[in-house]
């Protein structure tokens, strides 16, 4: 025990006495480790999030019905429950799903496509709240600009029909609860609740909507049938199997399968490339660190011999270079983390504005720092143990008279 304590304290005294040499080892370690950390920071930052965007992009996860079908509520309930389906919602006939929008500030009336939405709609992921009831709407940026309205303002929606030989028009007041930017949806769309979409269809079909005070034929007792749907899978990997399954059932669908293939192969290839870089980097780092620490043990040969001459046991002597390697590993890692954090800050602050994105470009999780430390200390200790055991096996008298 006293030998152990003495060795640890002696190894530290030597390490700090030789601070120039120790500093060189620390610098050498950090200068290999820091760039590797920055590389991984970029991988986990910008590259991952770009790949993730492609993988998560709703456009790539969408399955669209082609033509017109007859889907009942039960069918939607069944599909909504499935593991591979993230979101599904009915669509009405295209002709029935249009509304005329008018604002106070714009001179024109714009005929706009209506889409039903609900909680969980991947297209509206950015919107904290989805339209509900009959008086809320989320507009795409392009239509909001034409109408010259912003979030929180009110617009007028109106519908027209020929009923019993008369032309009728009804109005509904709509609160704009959100506006979706172009990169989310680039068409002129008004997202509303399913209730409002169905009310619109009822009105155009000449049926009554008592809740809005719209008159017409009594529609009670009729089963709702939907001609189409909007469906999003959980990930792009679910698209192809689900398309095949739906087509087996006779449902005619379309999806961005070509685009999905491209994204999948980019994802796969980038992952392979990063693993290659990671392995080459880790092996190179291990060899460079191992070699310098091994060389350090050889350099310490005489002093280790003197310690043995004074009476330290050979086995305990191994601790001397091992402790020094651990100091180097620890300090080198600390320095590398500092360099990395400075680089991360600079990269994120300097590049983010020019790339016009809000996400971080360079990023590492706390676990990554831990793994870097674990790798460093393992390599450091292994190299020193190998060198130290060799030194302890050599007869102490051999090192005593080295010049």
């Amino acid at each position, binding site marked *: 025990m006293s*030998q152990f304590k003495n060795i640890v304290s002696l190894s530290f*005294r030597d390490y700090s006495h030789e601070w120039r040499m120790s500093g060189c080892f620390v610098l050498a370690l950090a200068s290999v480790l820091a760039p590797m950390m920055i590389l991984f920071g970029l991988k986990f930052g910008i590259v991952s999030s770009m790949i993730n965007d492609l993988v998560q992009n709703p456009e790539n996860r969408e399955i669209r019905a082609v033509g017109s079908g007859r889907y009942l509520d039960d069918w939607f309930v069944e599909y909504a429950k499935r593991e591979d389906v993230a979101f599904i919602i009915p669509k009405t006939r295209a002709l029935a799903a249009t509304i005329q929008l008018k604002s106070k500030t714009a001179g024109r009336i714009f005929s706009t496509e209506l889409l039903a939405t609900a909680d969980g709609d991947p297209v509206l992921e950015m919107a904290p709240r989805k339209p509900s009831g009959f008086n809320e709407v989320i507009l795409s940026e392009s239509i909001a600009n034409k109408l010259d309205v912003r979030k929180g303002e009110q617009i007028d929606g109106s519908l027209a029909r020929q009923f019993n030989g008369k032309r009728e028009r009804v109005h509904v007041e709509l609160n704009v609860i959100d506006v979706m930017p172009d990169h989310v949806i680039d068409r002129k769309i008004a997202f509303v609740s399913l209730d409002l979409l169905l009310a619109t269809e009822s009105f155009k079909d000449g049926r009554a909507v008592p809740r809005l005070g719209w008159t017409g034929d009594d529609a009670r007792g009729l089963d709702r049938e939907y001609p189409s749907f909007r469906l999003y899978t959980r990930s792009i990997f679910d698209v192809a199997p689900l398309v095949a399954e739906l087509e087996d059932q006779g449902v005619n669908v379309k999806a961005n399968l070509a685009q999905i293939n491209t994204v999948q192969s980019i994802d796969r290839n980038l992952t392979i490339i990063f693993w290659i870089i990671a392995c080459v980097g880790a092996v190179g780092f291990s060899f460079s660190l191992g070699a310098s620490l091994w060389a350090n043990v050889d350099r310490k040969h005489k002093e280790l011999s*003197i310690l043995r*001459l*004074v009476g330290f*046991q050979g086995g305990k002597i191994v601790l001397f270079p091992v402790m020094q390697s651990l100091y180097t590993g620890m300090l080198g890692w600390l320095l590398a983390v500092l360099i990395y954090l400075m680089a991360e800050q600079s990269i994120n602050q300097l590049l983010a504005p020019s790339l016009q994105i809000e996400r971080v470009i360079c990023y590492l999780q706390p676990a990554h720092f831990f793994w870097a430390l674990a790798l460093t200390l393992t390599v450091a200790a292994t190299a020193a143990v190998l060198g130290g055991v060799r030194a302890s096996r050599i007869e102490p008298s051999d090192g005593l*008279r080295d010049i």
Partner: protein
Amino acid sequence: MSIIYSLRNVVKSRLVDGAGFRLNVPSVDIRAEENIALVGHSGCGKSTLLDMLAMVLHPDSAEQFTITPRDGQSTDLALLWQKKKRNHLSMLRKQHVGYVLQQGGLLPYLTVRENIELPRKLMDMPEDDSTRSLARVMGIHRQLDKLPGLLSAGERQRVAFTRALSHRPSILLADEPTASLDPITARKIMAVVMELVKGLKITMITASHDWAHVYKMDLRSLHQEAAVVENGNVYQSTFRD
């Protein structure tokens, strides 16, 4: 006086392809508190013999190689080497041997005081003023808080002797301790050491080729002879009583 080292037919060779050097000790007995000089020219195997006595170099073969330090416990060193009992050898070395090298062998990162106290610390000996009084006798008490790098060669050798004696070993081994010093300094240091060794009842074995004649009266020299044997391939050096 009891016998502290007893060697019979101890052989150590340094041969490459059958040619080289061989040290041969047919019979040497060193008694406790004796003061031995290994006299001979460079390369005659003085350091090799000292290293074997210090238990840092293993003999190739030995009919008998025992150490019997002050505590009276006799140990067969040849057997310990044969059985690779390195920790046992370390322990004996730590307790009973102080070794002074030609170039000091001080640890550059420890102060003079810490260097001197290292053997005591290893043996868990208490901290007392023995370091200070020993340092005063050796004339280095003003240097205790300096690093060895700041000392002169003579001062460094004084520190090396002080370290070798700090834990009160039975045996002091010194390998050309004054070879790098001027004769006057060398004589001054050795005079103090001889006094100390006598007072502390320590067995001293010194390899030397320059100053031993000064203390002829107090020293016993081992006889050394050299011969070229085995068709001129092996230079054989023999030490005897």
